[in-house]
């Protein structure tokens, strides 16, 4: 596919980044202060989407140091993903109306 404009991928990434900061700013200010602790635990869980990098590193056939590091990172990120979402769910279930 021919690109009409020759834009470097970094510029596209930067565009996404800046827009997402703005979205984050407005969305987080709308979070009720009563839920700030679940906000921290869920951001913890979702920041572990860094697992996508770990998965790629752990995926090649040949063994290497890079692959070992990737495998460990998959494990660490998984602790966070499962732990983060589970503890968030546990907390949210405590919030009840009268």
């Amino acid at each position, binding site marked *: 596919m021919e690109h009409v404009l020759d834009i470097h991928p970094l510029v596209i990434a930067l565009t996404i980044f800046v827009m997402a900061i703005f979205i984050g700013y407005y969305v987080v200010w709308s979070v009720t202060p009563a839920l700030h602790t679940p906000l921290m635990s869920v951001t913890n869980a979702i*920041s572990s989407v860094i697992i996508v990098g770990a998965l790629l590193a*752990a*995926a090649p056939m040949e063994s290497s140091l*890079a692959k070992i590091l990737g495998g460990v990172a998959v494990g660490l990120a998984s*602790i966070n993903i499962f732990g983060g*979402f589970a503890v968030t769910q546990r*907390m949210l279930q405590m*919030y009840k109306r009268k």
Partner: protein
Amino acid sequence: MTANFAAILYLISGVCFIMALRGLSSPASARTGNMFGIAGMVIAIGTTLAQPGVEDYLWIIIGVAVGGVIGTVIALKIKMTAMPQLVAAFHSLVGLAAVLVAASALLAPDVFRIAVEGDIHLISRIELSIGMVIGAMTFTGSIVAFAKLQELMTGAPLVFAGQRLFNLLVALAIVALAIIFCFDQSPTIFWIMTALALVFGVLIIIPIGGADMPVVISMLNSYSGWAAAGIGFTLDNSVLIIVGALVGSSGAILSYIMCKGMNRSFISVILGGFGGEDNKMVKSDKPHKAGSADDGAFILSNAGSVIIVPGYGMAVAQAQHAVREMVAELNKKGVKVRYAIHPVAGRMPGHMNVLLAEANVPYDDVFELDEINSDFASTDVAFVIGANDVVNPVAKTDPQSAIAGMPILDVENAKTVLFVKRSLSPGYAGIDNPVFYNANTMMLFGDAKKMVEAIVKTL
């Protein structure tokens, strides 16, 4: 799967994460939000596993299984009072994962398609350095925060002569090494830079005192986001960039809210040295009125309206369930009871709300400082339990005090103030509280839990 299709799936995943945060605008929508978060994660992982380079699933399955079991068990067992430590520990894992991914990318750049014949693109070298440095700082900084919160090390600020200059030199060295690495792609330089960043993470957290921990946790939350974004740039992965930006700004906003709750500037928190455990014990012999549980019960049951002001001391004494019982008894007698939460009532943002929710306090009875502060004047009884600095009017009257300008709950405006406390000792900030000696204040001396239980018996 084509690259374009994968990119679209990552975009959907990113939108799910935005919805997850959006759900937290009210407790009613929050659980749906969490489901969106889980969906986003499943999509992101599934999409990655379908990439052409992914050939061997063994390590991945083992990693996810082991990590998943550990994470789930911890999440189900953890006490709500220990949430700050747990979050700090989780932050350190994000940091370490970022470090490992960055290291892996350096060792095998072809896997991540960031190099031509082993020669990593200049842009990718910069991105790798940023991701690695922030990840390493997050990792060790969070470990120190964890150790302080878990009381494995002293909560008092650790300061030494020339500390700021030393920290500045370490920071400059890291930047210099990063620049060298960008030119020659030397792994040795990269590892030295990583080691220094690990040390730097420790250095920036040790001078920060116990009282400022809510800011520190929020700040590390923010760092973990920026670390993820840094890796996202390296991998050119949109969902990782989106999440990094969301988490980074979330942590930054929470840090700001916590700073405002204590009227501390972010810079002065970072520079540290404030709020240790070594309270100056001010022996007070000023006249004050002390009462028994019977007196407290009598005043409470004759009140029309009560506002409870809980502090972290209540949670330490495990008194929240007893308080809930007391409120149930008062409600039976027709007394209107509400809770007033100061932004820094707990040890992390929103901590007190979770502790009350765990004790089955309905969230519509719980109010933030701004919502309820003007109501104290028309309230019969303010019941302060385990809190001190957050109701200290010195914050408004003495510009020289350590808590000057901190927003406080105006309990002294209530007709009667009941203050449950062990003694007249000052709080975290080491400042005497004039409310103790007011004519309309009655001190209920004793352990928070025992005192409330005694009140419940009398009611």
